[in-house]
């Protein structure tokens, strides 16, 4: 057993862990941070992606002991402003908003990983092309969406983060529809 301390979504946790415990299992089973799911056992799917000091990492590919002293952001802590348990209560991150606006998720199982991988991608490349987004997300599998709307969402979030405003969304809010078709 090794003593580790990590800051997860703004809360510091100290625990004794087995040296073989994967970070994803530590997050889910010890800390109860179950917002990050597991999709494979070969580090291929990206469902478990979290940010460690701002960089996207597949949390099934590192041991909990390797995350000692690190700052970890999961999907549960991505939004601005956090509740008692670090739960997102505030403004969603632009990438989260864009995923909803562009229907970038269906079952949502890949979504936590996809969103965090996209956050990292946009941190490294503020103006990616469609092709760069497609290649940048190669480590994250989605079985539902065919990726098209995910790519659109990431391009839209990029535009918003550059201060150019989001791309026109696929969905229309009721507000958008005022007076239309009535």
């Amino acid at each position, binding site marked *: 057993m090794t003593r580790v301390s990590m800051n997860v979504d703004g809360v510091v946790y100290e625990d004794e862990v*087995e040296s073989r415990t994967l970070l994803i299992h530590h997050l889910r089973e010890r800390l109860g941070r179950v917002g990050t799911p597991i999709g*494979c056992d070969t580090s*291929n*799917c990206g469902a478990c992606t979290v940010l460690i000091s701002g960089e996207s990492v597949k949390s099934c590919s590192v041991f909990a002991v390797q995350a000692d002293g690190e700052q970890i952001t999961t999907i549960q802590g991505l939004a601005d402003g956090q509740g008692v348990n670090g739960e997102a209560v505030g403004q969603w991150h632009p990438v989260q908003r864009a995923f909803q606006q562009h*229907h970038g998720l269906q079952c*949502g199982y890949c979504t936590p990983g996809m969103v965090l991988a996209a956050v990292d991608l946009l941190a490294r490349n503020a103006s990616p092309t469609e092709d760069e987004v497609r*290649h940048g997300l190669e480590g994250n599998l*989605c*079985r539902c969406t065919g990726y098209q709307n995910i790519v659109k969402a990431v391009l839209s979030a990029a535009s918003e983060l550059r201060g150019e405003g989001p791309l026109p969304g696929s969905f229309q809010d009721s507000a958008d529809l005022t007076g239309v078709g*009535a």
Partner: protein
Amino acid sequence: MTEQLDAGMVAEQIADADALSSPRRGGELGRGRRRKEDAKLLTGQTNWTDNIVLPGLLHMSVLRSPMAHAKILSVDVSGALEMPGVIAAYSGADLAEVQGSLPCAWPVTPDMVHPDHHPLAVDEVRYVGDGVAVVVARDRYASADALEAIVVEYDELPVVLDMESAISDGTPLVHEDKGTNTCFVWPFAGGEDYDATKAKADVVVKRRFRQQRLLPAAMEPRAVVVAPIAAADDYTVYSATQIPHILRVMLALVTGIPEHRIRVIAPDVGGGFGSKLNVYAEEVLALVVAKKLGRPVKWTESRSEGFQATIHGRDQIQDVEICATQDGKVLGLKVDLLADMGAYLQLVTPGVPILGAFMFPAIYKMDAYSFTCTGVFTNKTPTDAYRGAGRPEATYAIERIMDELAHELGRDPMDLRRQNWIKHEEFPFETVCGLTYDSGNYEAATEKAEAMFGMAALRAEQKARRESRDPIQLGIGISTFTEMCGLAPSRVLGSLSYGAGGWEAAQIRMLPTGKVEVVSGATPHGQGHHTSWSQIVADALGVPFEDVECVTGDTDSSPKGMDTYGSRSLVVGGVAIHRAAAKVIEKARRVAAHLLEAAEGDVEFRSGTFSVKGSPEAKTTIQEVALATFAAHNLPEGMEPTIDADCVYDPENFSFPHGTHLCAVEVDTETGFTKIRKYVCVDDVGKVVNPVIVEGQVHGGLTQGIAQALYEEAIHDAAGNLVTGTMADYLLPTAADLPHFDTGRTETASTTNPLGVKGVGEAGTIASTPAVINAVVDALRPFGVNNIDMPATPERVWRLVQSGGSR
């Protein structure tokens, strides 16, 4: 009746598929509402089954057979019991009295061979991954560790893996006691005698197509948690399933626990694609072990475990023959199928190819149709429904053979289709299979798709590349598909020997504060049911979309249902909700008339308000009526104080979405690599409730169909091991592997349901595979290629180019 979207809008759509989300009519239907489901999914507050933790929870792990076929001589679990944290361990023999046999609900013929299928093998294992023993321990790691301490002695038996050897003489038998590997032979014929028709034909074209084995690979692995209240003999089963209602019945039948003592909850479920439309060994095992121990038990599959232990899809050999006149009129079609069942029958294993039987003639008129399917046992994971279930196989065969016939006749493949398809004015049309297609407009969808595609320019480029012997050849593939959705009229299912009906249940509850609860038996796992249901109810009752709450996926709170598969949720479940809403309005009208002191016949309902004909100031809203009914102080004489309503809806027919998909591929004849250059699809799924959700379904469907054409194949070695046993080996496409899709729609309303809807869940998967392969074959025609096995990998393509088309 076809409602063509107006011309200006069509042009816009060609430029931008987003235009589809523009509302076309007033109200909620056809409006691109943002999904209600998204908030929790985007913030990590989802309730996946594996997230569930209960006091005293134990973890179960399953020891699986490393052999495809062997006698079990002994299983010794004593080593496991000595491991730290282990609470119990059982072999198949230990559980023989309580584990029962897994159900197959579709005995397709009276003499179908239906072997026992124990959740844990007792005497013999029959595929790699067959369960042999379970361990239950205090945590995940401890139970996994303890598996290694179980000692099993096997006596290896010969294996049979391919279907043709399995049905030849002297072959090893998967089930020795059955004396055969043939599970069933299911013949079907429609129209005139096929052989007599063929005798009149000028041209006969034959091909053998293989539907490779596929892994459904929903992103959420399967998981189950069973919480017993031992003293009360009461069990709550949480399962990552598409079918909580069916599962409840089946768990009762398998285990003997009374049905009313079992509650099944499907929490948030992360995709299914048919793989969670089943009753699995682990669901039964977790239940019987939890019952034995009186403690909650969880099992979650690891991905590579799931690749062995969750059903596989497709796996058919199709011998297809089409006959026609010299001028291109199709006369008849003959299909001989071998369908791989795997080692056992799961819930609807034998029914999958039968569902396809009616779809081979597709959109074409013909005089004669002959079909035979032979179900075959092999030492592999059982197959079952995978997105499309039978219909992608049929669509592939007919759309491929139409291209081959066109080639044989020297005809343009679209012209040949046009000559033979059912004309718009011929609907409703009874096909050679006896199905009645209620509506369709193949001309409109095709015209639109061709315009979006730029067919003429691509054909010109293809010609130029052929003439210059460019190493990059261009191929154009067509798929003008239809499918049979909205499973299903119960009497039809009965006539096909399926064990249950095809209805769906709905309930609408009007709450005193004016909010509305919708209870539906269609269980979501990513489709956005709650959003679509809210739109249907908001539209019908004139209440705000935000005021509608949906209740699904729990046999306590949504007690009646047939669940989600076969593109049925909207077509059957949505219509049930629509009808329940109509009943609410009728009950509420009675109350409104009473309150307004008017005759019921004089009270009109519009946009949520009841008013009296001729005196518009006399009105009351449906919310006010709900409150008045709740208070019940002043109701019509003899009326029960409720305006809630139920509906159980049994569809009178299937629905028949259709569309035209066009694919252009660039094939590098030097490397064999295929790149999709352009993919255009125009789908006609009837009326739509939420166009953005519809488009998302199409995207996902296309991707799975394209993946079958180009990437995915479950491969076994000679000993029966799954070589593509992890996500590192099984090629699921990534964002970088896929093109941008240009999607469009035409709307030809279904005439057999009041919403005019047809279903969309499987359309993309059904249509896209032949479009891609037709394009690859088209690119390779100059090399003498007239067929290619799927997936069309670079190696396969390269070999065909090298060998001049011989496989």
